[in-house]
């Protein structure tokens, strides 16, 4: 039973989705229990897998027992292989856990935002989790593409189910997403033609073994294609056009699921491609792309931060902050030293939690006040203390203040930048932190002070409806629990920085030669 945890992890949401579509088509009431049940099993399986990985090291799981070929045939993989190492295992816990907590919020919104489509939404929700987990767990390049498309297709539908403007935003996302996935597929094709296998570990070994292979232009083009495809998918700055509108006009529960997970999982895939497929040796010793890519990341960080500053729509602001955060992670990963990659991997975890926390809190605030603008925050500390507490924790983490996880991941990124001598990256990180501080303290000012906000005239906190039970009634208990858990996670990932950093260090491994 323990051996089968990697498949149980993948199958639970999948069977949930298929079961819903077959058995509960006309029973919207079945949607949420199945979502909760399937995700709870997934989280459990992921936690057990993590424990196993911590005890016995990396797990390799051969799907349906297709064993590797015997040595005389070069030991190549035949079937699809799952590979769970320390970092994967952490991300695998994170994905279903966020989906499960978000389901607490979804429960209250499903009937309102997707009336008549509850079952369809629940199916897509579970399938998105399958796709995201699959991308992290699989060790087969083509399987990775298929799961990438599964998660993309479900996320298109989850966004498109939303409001009037969502349709056009989704259309743009489909266009960009398809180009991105196709580039990835093309890159995998180049690798397959040159190397003759799709197993990520085998490709890596073949590349390490033959310097002739490493010198081929087509491998270089493959690396370029795969990276470009993933950047399109994660919304690295010049390629971010689809992101803000898609997340802003999606149903709120989609936004709070996808914003923390989708771009971050793409960063995980990029890190795996860099570390496990091409190898840092190859990327940093033979291709000299570091200056260019770190440069792009710097532009992404600055552009994301300043666009966020210019936004007056709260969710739009958060979307541009994601663009900046993607810049942090891509830049950190391409610094090419251990601290940088540790920072990028750590930032994946912390950014997922803090984005989740902020999106949940903002969704609650928008629902309560009915406003999308920053003015929604007027008197918010008084009206909705829990939501604002969660928002504050998330905001402090975005700014990067010590007890929160944002500080520690940014710390590693800064160390990486200093060690690599990429001072412009360090400068951009610091400027972005300052811009975030301005951004969030402006909101705190609106929330705390009786000020005249923008053009909406004078405002009096006392004019607000003031009954103490109201705030609990209006923000459903499930949402409040979800926000508390998310805020706790932000703090816990910060406080547990030492074990997490050591997981990531094991993952990068001693075997990896780090480029100077």
């Amino acid at each position, binding site marked *: 039973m323990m051996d089968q945890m990697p498949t149980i992890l993948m199958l639970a949401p999948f069977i949930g989705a298929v079961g819903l579509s077959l058995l509960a088509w006309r029973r919207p009431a079945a949607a949420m229990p199945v979502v909760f049940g399937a995700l709870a099993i997934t989280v459990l399986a992921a936690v057990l897998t993590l424990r196993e990985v911590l005890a016995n090291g990396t797990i390799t799981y051969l799907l349906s027992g297709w064993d590797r070929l015997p040595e005389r045939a070069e030991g190549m993989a035949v079937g699809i292989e799952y590979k769970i190492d320390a970092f994967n295992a952490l991300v695998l816990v994170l994905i279903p856990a966020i989906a499960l907590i978000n389901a607490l919020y979804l429960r209250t919104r499903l009937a309102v935002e997707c009336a008549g489509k509850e079952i369809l939404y629940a199916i897509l929700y579970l399938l998105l989790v399958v796709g995201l987990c699959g991308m992290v767990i699989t060790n087969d390049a083509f399987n990775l593409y298929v799961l990438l498309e599964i998660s993309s297709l479900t996320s298109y539908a989850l966004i498109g189910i939303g409001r009037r*403007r969502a349709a056009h935003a989704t259309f743009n996302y*489909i*266009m960009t997403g398809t180009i991105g996935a196709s580039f990835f597929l093309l890159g995998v094709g180049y690798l397959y033609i040159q190397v003759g296998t799709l197993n990520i570990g085998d490709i890596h070994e073949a590349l390490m073994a033959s310097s002739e292979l490493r010198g081929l232009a087509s491998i270089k083009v493959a690396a370029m294609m795969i990276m470009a495809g993933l950047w399109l998918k994660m919304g690295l700055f010049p390629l971010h056009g689809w992101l803000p509108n898609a997340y802003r006009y999606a149903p709120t529960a989609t936004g709070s699921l996808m914003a923390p997970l989708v771009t971050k999982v793409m960063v995980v895939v990029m890190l795996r491609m860099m570390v496990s497929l091409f190898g840092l040796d190859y990327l940093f010793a033979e291709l000299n792309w570091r200056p260019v890519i770190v440069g792009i990341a710097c532009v992404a960080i600055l552009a994301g931060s300043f666009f966020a500053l210019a936004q007056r729509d709260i969710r739009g602001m958060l979307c541009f902050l994601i663009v900046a955060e993607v810049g942090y992670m891509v830049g950190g990963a391409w610094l090419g030293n251990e601290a940088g990659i540790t920072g990028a991997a750590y930032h994946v975890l912390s950014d997922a939690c803090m984005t989740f926390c902020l999106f949940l809190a903002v969704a609650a605030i928008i629902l309560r006040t*009915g406003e999308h*603008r920053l003015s929604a925050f007027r008197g918010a500390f008084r009206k909705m203390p829990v939501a604002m507490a969660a928002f504050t924790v998330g905001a402090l983490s975005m700014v990067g203040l010590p007890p929160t996880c944002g500080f520690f991941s940014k710390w590693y990124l800064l160390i990486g930048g200093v060690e690599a001598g990429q001072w412009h990256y360090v400068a951009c990180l610091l400027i972005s932190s300052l811009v975030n501080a301005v951004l969030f303290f402006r909101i705190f000012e609106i929330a705390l002070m009786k000020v005249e906000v923008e053009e909406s005239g004078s405002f009096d906190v006392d004019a607000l409806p003031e009954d103490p039970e109201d705030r609990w009634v209006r923000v459903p208990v499930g949402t409040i629990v979800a926000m508390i858990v998310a805020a706790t996670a932000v703090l816990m990932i910060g406080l547990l920085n030492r074990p997490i950093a050591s997981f990531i260090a094991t993952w990068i491994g001693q075997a990896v030669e780090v480029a100077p």
Partner: protein
Amino acid sequence: MELLTLTAQFEWILGKSNYWASTVLLLIGLHAMISKNNLIKKLIGMSIFQTGIILFYVSAGAKHGAQIPIVHYGHDSHESHDKAAHAAEHAADAGQQVAEAAAPAANHAADATHTLGETLYANPLPHVLMLTAIVVGVATLGLALAMVQKVYAAYGSIEEDEVLDAIADSTADSTADNTVDSTVDRTVKGTPEA
């Protein structure tokens, strides 16, 4: 870099005609996706783009005079199976070994027109991969068409500039802070929405 003779250049272009064809398809598709104004034309571009990739894979798996990769009864199935999974670059080498492995069992396959060493097996993997990619492409196209329908229902047009104008108008009309829509629970404010 050494100078190529004229014939060698022709060889370089014609010998890789499948890659040229797929590259041209990719560029046509990309161009349509980026520059066309009509949403349906964009989708046509997307289909061409995906077809280019499918052509790339399928042609890479094709091999002149190759057999379908079905193992004859009585062969050392393990051996030939191994070899079928090999890459194109190992093809010649692998084919020779298949022939050797198959030699003892040649009397079982006496009616085979060629010896196995000459015919080789085509690598089935790229084709199988493309079956999956085609399914993904169909799903994407279907979803995108559904989105075009939603766009048309909302804005009465599938020309991108007209849709963008309509979006800009609808944003300008609604007075700033009250762009409350279906995501916001009407009951919260207690005021009926227009």
